[in-house]
């Protein structure tokens, strides 16, 4: 399936979803760090603090890794396999210049034009089961494309009191 220039396939869903990206030449994608499972040897990886220092610290506070990894297909079309940490589904969501709030552990991958920011959880939400902060995904470009992981954790919440 191709959405806004990002060709992907979700395999082995719903139990053990594996995201398979076909990167065009010199195309870049952002992954949650450590989500990479297998890839062509010629894909270049770079770790960076996403969204600058403050956003990075926010990500860390939200229980996420401070870093996201940037993968670029150097020169030729390349293939990249991505597996989220927990078994479950992966779902695609297309940002059209709007914003999406999501549980911080739900992020799997996105196009480079998507901006990640961290918002602290609304106090009204504190009575909810989930103890996580939420990180907002903001697509600055119309072509923003986020791949969300739907988690085992969210369907069978683990108590973290």
């Amino acid at each position: 399936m191709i959405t806004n220039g990002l060709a992907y396939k979700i395999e082995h869903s719903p139990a053990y979803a594996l995201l398979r990206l076909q990167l065009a030449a010199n195309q870049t994608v952002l992954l949650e760090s450590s989500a990479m499972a297998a890839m062509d040897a010629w894909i270049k990886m770079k770790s960076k603090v996403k969204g600058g220092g403050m956003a990075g610290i926010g990500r860390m506070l939200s229980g996420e890794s401070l870093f996201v990894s940037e993968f670029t297909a150097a020169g030729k079309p390349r293939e990249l396999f991505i597996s989220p940490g927990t078994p479950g589904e992966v779902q695609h969501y297309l940002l059209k210049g709007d914003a999406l709030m999501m549980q911080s552990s739900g992020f799997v991958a996105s196009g480079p034009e998507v901006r990640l920011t961290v918002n602290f959880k609304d106090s009204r939400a504190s009575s909810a089961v989930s103890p996580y902060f939420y990180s907002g995904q903001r697509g600055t470009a119309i072509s923003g494309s986020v791949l969300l992981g739907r988690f085992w954790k969210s369907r069978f919440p683990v108590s973290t009191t």
Partner: protein
Amino acid sequence: MLAGESLFLSTFRSGGGQGEVYLAPKLMGDILPYQLTSTGLVVQSTSYLASTPSVDVDLGFQGLKSFFSGESIFWLNLSGSGLVLLSSFGAIYDVAVNGEYIVDTGDIVAFEKSLSFSITKAGSSWLGAFLGSEGLVYRFKGQGQIFCQTHNPGAFGSLVGGQLPPK
């Protein structure tokens, strides 16, 4: 035993008539039947489930490099010909390699012996490799198939383990 496998393999032999055996791996996931040929197969030790008697199962030593990757130092070397059953955590997908390919540590089920591997960092800088927690990866070279599991038992264990109440 050192490979984290049990010291003994059980042999099931049907007596006079036909018989049926049910096998269940430890972790939830797939079972992959693989027809072994003269190429040979290297199996990550906990992924071995069963094989026909015509298959030789040897303890293989892939060097200290496996140790540094957080993986068991020992792999199983399968040779001969016959049917092999492999198990995984999550689904199994295969990657046909012609040249070089990178796979995250902990994701390997098995690979054909026509491939060789080394342990490298995923990115261009060592600092980035660790900060990005992608850490170390396998770099496979040659021509052949790699069988990977969609999920990493070690990573899943540390994710869930932290959420469990203390004993």
